[in-house]
């Protein structure tokens, strides 16, 4: 178990380095650099050259990458070439917001998805199952911007219950923060819950047809006990995996929701870093998203192993 964990962490680190190389190479292919983007339409060649030197962009690409990697290994993500402040500080303003939004969404979405999936699986083939199926498929099919805009129109513009923008800051109290995050959380829940619910339903329905469930039924065991105690541990693998994939989406994929609600999160920061060609910031964001993804997958695997002794034996 420990050896496996070490191997997984090692390969995760390798993945991070590879991803950083790919991101760096891809960003170098984009037209223009940070100096040109900063000066914009009004750039003269002399200004661009001066600013490029000021930003340290006049070194060849491999040298710049090596410098970044060396600094990163020392734990320093560098200085943002656009904002003139340490990348660490910029991330520190946004990471807690993204984690909070993802956390709140997870708290709502995961139990909801489990309940929906289990109910649908138990009632497989009935009207309830079909209704839930249609509901979840429609949720997957609806684009986020539509859900978000409709939510704003109904709850903010018409009813005036909730704010149309989610401006969280240190100054706002917990109640205010919760209120302004309600609509974004609702939208993200709609997006991620369907996937998880459908995976849960499939995994549990698959188990419910197995002989051991029939045996348990014949013994006279209640349905609740069968599902929670006998079926769940066997179905947990795919369910946790689906949950991990959905939750990793919440970190980097919340861009549409962040844009519509003007939420100061990491996804919009990364898009911002791409358009301003801010390499250190872009790399830092990519590393965070990649690390979050790898961590969630790792947790999912460990959870599956803990639930299923057969996996540990392999």
């Amino acid at each position, binding site marked *: 178990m420990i050896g496996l964990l070490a191997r997984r962490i090692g390969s995760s680190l390798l993945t991070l380095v590879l991803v950083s190389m790919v991101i760096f190479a891809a960003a170098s292919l*984009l*037209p*223009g650099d940070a100096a*040109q*983007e*900063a*000066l*914009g*339409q*009004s*750039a*003269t*060649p*002399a*200004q661009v050259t*001066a*600013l490029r030197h*000021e930003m340290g962009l006049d070194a060849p690409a491999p040298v710049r990458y090596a410098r970044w990697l060396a600094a990163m290994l020392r734990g320093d993500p560098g200085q*943002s070439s*656009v*904002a*003139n*402040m340490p990348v660490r500080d*910029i991330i520190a*303003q*946004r990471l807690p917001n993204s984690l909070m939004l993802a956390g709140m969404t997870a708290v709502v979405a995961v139990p909801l998805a489990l309940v929906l999936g289990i109910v649908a699986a138990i009632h497989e083939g009935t009207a309830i199952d079909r209704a839930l199926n249609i509901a979840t498929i429609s949720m997957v099919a609806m684009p986020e911007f539509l859900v978000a*805009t409709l939510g*704003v*129109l109904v709850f*903010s*513009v018409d009813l*005036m219950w909730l*704010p*149309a*923008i989610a*401006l969280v*800051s240190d*100054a706002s109290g917990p109640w205010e923060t919760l209120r302004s995050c309600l609509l974004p959380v609702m939208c993200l829940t709609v997006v991620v819950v369907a996937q998880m619910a459908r995976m849960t339903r499939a995994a549990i329905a698959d188990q419910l047809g197995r002989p051991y469930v029939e045996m348990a039924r014949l013994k006279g065991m209640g349905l609740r006990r069968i599902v929670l105690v006998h079926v769940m541990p066997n179905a947990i693998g795919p369910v946790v995996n689906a949950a991990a994939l959905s939750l990793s989406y919440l970190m980097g994929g919340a861009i549409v929701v962040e*844009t*519509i*609600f*003007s939420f*100061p999160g990491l996804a*919009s*920061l990364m898009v*911002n*870093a791409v*358009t*301003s060609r*801010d390499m250190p*910031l872009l790399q830092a964001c990519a590393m965070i998203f990649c690390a979050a993804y790898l961590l969630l997958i790792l947790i999912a695997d460990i959870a599956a192993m803990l639930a299923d002794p057969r996996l540990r034996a392999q």
Partner: protein
Amino acid sequence: MTGFDRRSVLAGGGLLAMPGGLAAAVPRRGGAIRVATQSSSTADTLDPAKGALSTDYVRHYMLYSGLTRVGVDMVARPNLAARIETDDRITWHIALRRGVHFHDGAELTSADVVWSLRRHGDPRVGSKVSAIARQFAQVRADGRYGVVLVLSGANADLPAILAQSQFLIVRNGATQPDGNGTGPFRLAAFQPGIRTVVTRNPDYFVSGRPYLDRIELFAISDEVGRVNALLAGDVHFVAAINPRTTRRVAASPGHAVLSTPSGLYTNLIARMDRPPTANPDLVLALKYLMDRPLIKRALFRGYATIGNDQPIPPFHPYFNPAVAQTGLDLDRARWHLRRSGIGTARLPIFASQAAEGAVDMASILQEYGSRVGLDLAVTRVPADGYWSTHWMRHPLTFGSTNPRPTADLVFSLFYKSDAPWNETGWSNPRFDQLLVQARGEGDEARRRAYYGEMQQIVHDRCGSVIPVFVDLIDGYDRRLGGVTPVRLGSLMGYQFAENVWWNA
């Protein structure tokens, strides 16, 4: 022109219709508002010299003051300067207002002004106006409250230039200005790409101003989101509303639209220094192919002013009404096309969303081109990186020019033969000569005549096709008092902060 007048009347009527009638027109102290612009990023800055977007301009006018300021009437008046005097429009004597203090308590002196004006020449600063500041041949202090500014050539527009947000005054020695200015508001919080919060400066040198206690400035990049936030009451003033959305805002009883006719234009640029667009007949054909009323109606829902292929809009004091208006004329286009000898060659037009309306304009042009046998191919390119990779690099591209405070600036930046952004790459000695003459001319009548002739030359000879000037459209909460259009830019020429009040 009539369209602009009608809308101004409408905007005025909206103000009078406010609950309370006349009483509401009396400014009152206090209140906190939230303002949303269209763009914000980690490039947001507290350095006026680096101001690049409307969010920056607004922030800088809140925190800093300029030597001069341009009012609603577009006339530059002394501000931090008590007097600006010159005999030859080359050597300018600036006498500073006394007893003005920075937010940190330090008194404003000539050293601060000298520092602020000189730093534009330093390439490491990355000033957006270094090209304009190049004419500051000498900036020196003349005692504690006097500054002498010697220009490299006569320029009667200096007071208007100094009113631009990039020339706002920072503290002496501030290499990276941190918001410490002499402006109407003090900085309470600044997070690039997230928000700016300012609070009233009780020691502001203009007595009675500002009215508001607190302003929170941020961006909502999604236009629908921005309008929804306004209608939901979460923000009270928003910039850049789409012409299609104006009805929604106007339909709400608590909100109004602020339409500002401006010198902003999106132009088709024909490079005159390379084939095939170097051919003057081809350029004329393109000008006759522009359906200006259609562009005004379909692309901007009437929120635009018809243009005439020269950059001075009809409401500008130096506008020359004698220049004949070019309109859609397929026969003339066909005739010029035949004379150009371009034949059936395929001409690519590079269009991008980076220049507002460019893609649609290109499509309209393509349609009319096909009727006269001109084969135009619209190549749509991404907005990202457009200015550095496509703009001016192909024979036919689109440009976008923001309103400039003076006729001289727009001509010098985009039409002078040796300007770095001489978009069309044209060269007209007579135009260049008139430009320098007009800049140094003290007599208004002669100046007007020079600018009039320059408009005629650009209209006749230059490859810049300007179909319309676009109105800037903002939306505001009717409880906000004192809102009037200022043609310098959106959000009352970016200077709403010290001029509006809150009736609630």
